[in-house]
């Protein structure tokens, strides 16, 4: 926080005292407009979702009519039933749960292991390792989608859920984040444990992990959200609709002309029900998230 001292020109001189009357008036009017601004802002976020929710529980006919839909008309859960059973979103949902849970678990394990290795003070080759890991961060996955596709093909992983679990198995970002968390654990603790004869792995599981729960939670939540929303990898690697994840099934529902022509009618209530299903799990874990996300960003942004 070296900035504070040199960037605080709080030199409010005598000149401003002359305006102090205006200032009090402004100080009174400001909170009001501020409140109005925030209410409008919140409305731009809430109204769209309210619209989606209202349509999702409206009847197919009512949802197809023009007009403003902020309240359910001909209330029914038919849209949810249609999208879950007839459109088959259920399987896509299950696939997403599988990929997300396995992918996130492995990601957290690998990132913490690597993060732990990187805090060792006397590890030969550490600089090289750090460079190796940071190097991967300069290569955004989108930019290697074509060769990644070729690699998955060579490994016979196309059209498998394994391909989805593997892509993003670990990331430089998460490793550095874990390293930054671990760096906050007193090194002496590890030293004394080592002197007592504890193995590296034991020090990791018994000292570092318990003391870095917040770190683990941060990358787990980051990864969870990222995995749940994973899209490009799925359209890249998956052919068969039985292996689609929720996002791609939803995209087919929302924006594609479905080639399975005989299926029941995809009315707005069906589409919006699909959207609600896709966001519900995220809303469920949301309460835990806000705190960790900020923590993650501020720690992750610490420059190497």
């Amino acid at each position, binding site marked *: 926080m070296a900035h504070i001292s040199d960037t605080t020109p709080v030199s409010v001189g005598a000149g401003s005292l002359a305006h102090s009357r205006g200032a009090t008036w402004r100080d009174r009017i400001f909170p009001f407009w501020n409140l109005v601004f925030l209410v409008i802002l919140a409305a731009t976020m809430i109204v769209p979702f309210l619209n989606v929710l209202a349509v999702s529980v409206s009847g197919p006919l009512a949802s197809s009519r023009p007009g403003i839909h902020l309240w359910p008309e001909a209330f029914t859960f038919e849209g949810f039933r249609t999208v879950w059973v007839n459109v088959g979103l259920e399987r896509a949902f299950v696939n997403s749960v599988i990929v997300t849970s396995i992918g996130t678990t492995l990601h957290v394990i690998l990132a913490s292991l690597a993060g732990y290795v990187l805090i060792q003070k006397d590890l030969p080759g550490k600089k090289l390792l750090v460079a190796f890991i940071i190097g*991967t961060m300069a290569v955004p996955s989108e930019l290697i989608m074509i060769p990644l596709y070729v690699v998955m093909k060579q490994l016979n992983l196309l059209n498998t859920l394994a391909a989805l679990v593997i892509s993003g198995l670990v990331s430089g970002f998460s490793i550095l984040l874990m390293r930054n968390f671990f760096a906050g654990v007193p090194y002496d603790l590890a030293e004394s444990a080592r002197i007592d004869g504890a193995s590296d792995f034991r020090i990791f599981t018994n000292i570092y992990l318990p003391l870095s729960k917040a770190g683990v939670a941060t990358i787990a939540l980051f990864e969870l959200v990222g995995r749940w929303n994973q899209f490009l990898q799925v359209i890249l690697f998956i052919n068969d609709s039985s292996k689609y994840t929720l996002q791609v099934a939803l995209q087919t529902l929302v*924006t594609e002309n479905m080639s399975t022509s005989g299926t029941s009618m995809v009315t707005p209530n069906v589409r919006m029900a699909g959207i609600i299903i896709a966001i519900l799990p995220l809303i469920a874990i949301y309460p835990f998230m806000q705190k960790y*996300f900020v923590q993650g960003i501020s720690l992750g942004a610490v420059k190497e």
Partner: protein
Amino acid sequence: MRNTIRLMKIHAALYVMLIPVIIYFLVFVYYPLVRGVQLSFQADKLFGPKPYVGWDNYVTAWHDPEFWQVVRNTLIIGVGSLVAGFLPPIIIAVALNELLQITFKKFVQTVVYLPHLFSWVVIGGIWIYLLTPSGGLVNEIIKRLGGTSVGFLTDPTWARAVMILLPVWKGMGFAAIIYLASITSINPTLYEAARIDGANRFQQIYQITIPLLVPTMKVVLILDVLGLLRTFDQIYVMRNAVIQSKIDVLMVYVFDTGITNFKLGFASAVSVMVLVATLIITAITTVISRYEDQGG
């Protein structure tokens, strides 16, 4: 030397721990990188070996007006979002910070943050629906206010505006919370002193809060700049036949040519060019921010 070997022996378990990570990065990051470069020099054939064709794919891309159109689109949409999205989160963070009712503050914080969590399929799906001329909320409101409905996603000018503004809408809550975190960490005595000196609310914000947010602004900007050339999901989900040529961005172009039309070599050449551009941009941003850090 002997010391190194001794240390390596001690830490043997650590190296073992790293093996999966190293293998992953080698196979799924570094090898594809090399393979991508290799592919970019190969001809496109569906079957059999692909002959090397030198710089042909690069030359073809370079002379393809469509390539330049998507470069233009990428820059317009990317830079547009960057500029349009710079101030809103700061304003929101400051506004939230000024708010005294804790419950409402928490509520607004929660709500503005939500869109950031959701995928572009969800956000795109919602807004495609909201923006339809007949039955879409936005146009129904316009109509009720006496206007005529607007083809937001069929008029290329409007569509570009939508593509620029939606990421702002989606991301501003997230950025605002980062800013808010920095604001709350500002030493309250600074405001105290300012108040004693007679500074009003605006002056406090302008003279204390904003300058102290500069480092955070840099971080947010760098993250945005690095994402600029990577945009994919948003456009892929929201495009349609009428506006496609005005909103398709580089990564969508790579996907279309490489995956949909299966011109792997051509698409790889485009990717490599974008990658080089990304590296240059990254280098420039890093240098600038380092320089500023030292200078400031």
